[in-house]
């Protein structure tokens, strides 16, 4: 495999290999020298057409820990704001000899298009409402290290599924790895094609919670909403928000995940967000190891 565009492309063995590699690479963060010489002389371009702090810094840190040269290229303040197309930008990067391109774009499918234009590896860091493979991989990694397994795990993904690339990537990946996913959202926030996804769907959070090993809360992506999908934020929060009372009804060792950024008081209460069962900061730390694993597997070797 040359690119990482969708978690749907990953076989169970490939996905497991990525997670296992990340497990070994996680140790690097604890060493005195937090750097490996593996990708010395390789160039990774972070091509970000959408704002991102977490993902971009995570990829940057991962690449730097592997000794790759990193170029950050954001749409603001670059040739893109002067009207350059994605293809021309891609060809520019190609001419500069980028070995890997990490792309985030507001258009679904942007990473796929880019993969046809450049010789290097393309890593999808989020394309529109389509996919965000490394996020799903780091989520699976976090579940595996917290709960010890993925096979048979019951995962509830709650919130704005319609606009979420994280949800799709997670459903595809977790199903491949043997977990059972249930999507929970108001009908207005589910994509029309959701019945074709390999998962269950529920509109009622309270019936799903007592049977969930993992509950993943998603942010309501107001910036992508051009019409109203629910009557009020208060009503959304009452029906689909995770508060301490709901947390108490979950199995004792169940964990709460969130891909971030969190909106406290909306999909998750401050109390839950700060509880030790919430893995948000762990997910961020795991993100670096996971992205190191992906960069290593895609960029090293011939």
């Amino acid at each position: 495999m040359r690119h990482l565009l969708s978690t749907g492309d990953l076989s169970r063995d490939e996905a497991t290999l990525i997670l296992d590699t990340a497990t070994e690479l996680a140790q690097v963060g604890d060493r005195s020298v937090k750097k490996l010489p593996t990708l010395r002389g390789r160039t990774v371009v972070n091509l970000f057409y959408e704002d991102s702090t977490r993902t971009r810094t995570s990829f940057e840190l991962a690449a730097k820990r592997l000794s790759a040269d990193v170029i950050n290229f954001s749409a603001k303040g670059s040739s893109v704001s002067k009207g350059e197309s994605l293809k021309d930008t891609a060809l520019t990067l190609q001419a500069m000899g980028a070995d890997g391109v990490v792309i985030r774009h507001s258009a679904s499918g942007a990473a796929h298009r880019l993969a046809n234009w450049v010789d290097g590896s393309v890593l999808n860091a989020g394309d529109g409402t389509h996919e965000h493979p490394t996020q799903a991989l780091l989520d699976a990694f976090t579940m595996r290290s917290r709960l010890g397994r993925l096979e048979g795990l019951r995962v509830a993904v709650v919130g704005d599924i319609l606009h979420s690339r994280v949800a799709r990537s997670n459903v595809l990946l977790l199903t491949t790895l043997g977990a059972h996913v249930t999507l929970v959202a108001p009908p207005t926030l589910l994509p029309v094609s959701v019945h074709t996804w390999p998962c269950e769907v529920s509109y009622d959070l309270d019936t799903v919670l007592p049977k969930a090993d993992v509950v993943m809360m998603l942010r309501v992506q107001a910036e992508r909403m051009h019409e109203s999908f629910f009557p009020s934020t208060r009503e959304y929060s009452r029906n689909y928000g995770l508060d301490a009372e709901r947390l108490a009804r979950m199995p004792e060792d169940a964990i709460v995940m969130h891909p971030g950024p969190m909106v406290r008081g909306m999909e998750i209460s401050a109390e839950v967000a700060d509880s030790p069962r919430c893995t948000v900061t762990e997910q961020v730390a795991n993100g670096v190891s996971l992205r190191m694993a992906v960069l290593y597997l895609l960029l090293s070797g011939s």
Partner: protein
Amino acid sequence: MHARKPADGDADGGVPRAREGARAVLDGNEINRALTRIAHEVLERTKGGEDVTLLGIPSRGVPLARRLARRIERVEEMSVPVGSLDITMYRDDLRSSPVRALGRTEIPTGGLDDRVVVLIDDVLFSGRTVRAALDALGDLGRPRAVQLAVLVDRGHRELPIRADYVGKNLPTSLRENVTVCLEETDGEDAVLLSPSRPSPSTTLNRRPSAEDPSSPSPSTTLNRRPSAEDPSSPSPSTTEGND
């Protein structure tokens, strides 16, 4: 993204089937005796083994390190920290071979600073694995001294590296393969010497002749051998993990 599993990818890996023409140079008892001797030598050279930490290089070096530790403990009645040091990320041939799966690195609690680290590997060949191990050690701490113990030294060094403790010096030709089998990983103890390795696809129906420099087709990269006549392929030997 098809990484090779350390167990079956390394040339020292694979199932220890009695390869045609393979000859056992060391049997289980001889391996044990060699390890016992090395254990005594380590104690002697390090004046009682006070600050010694043993680090095995995956995959075969790790069980060897554990065995060595047990022997040292039996002789001196002291416990020796044992760990493993994966050198995959430090290899100099990563670009020229398919992606490799990582082995495990476990540094014993207490770290490596001011310890006498004894690296343990199964076969010392080109020396490139040990070069990588020294680089890896430098990122993990600052040992007082680093020594090297190997079960078999087969010669053909490509770097200025030598072993401090050697189980057996085994003069080999570059066309021969040395395979170390250990009970922990392969079910039995033996060191096998076999004529030039056939590529996996041809193992079954073809015996490589000495005139055939093991059909260097790209698909056989995993097992390609450096031929003596071909100095332009300096490092593939290290892909074998036999050094």
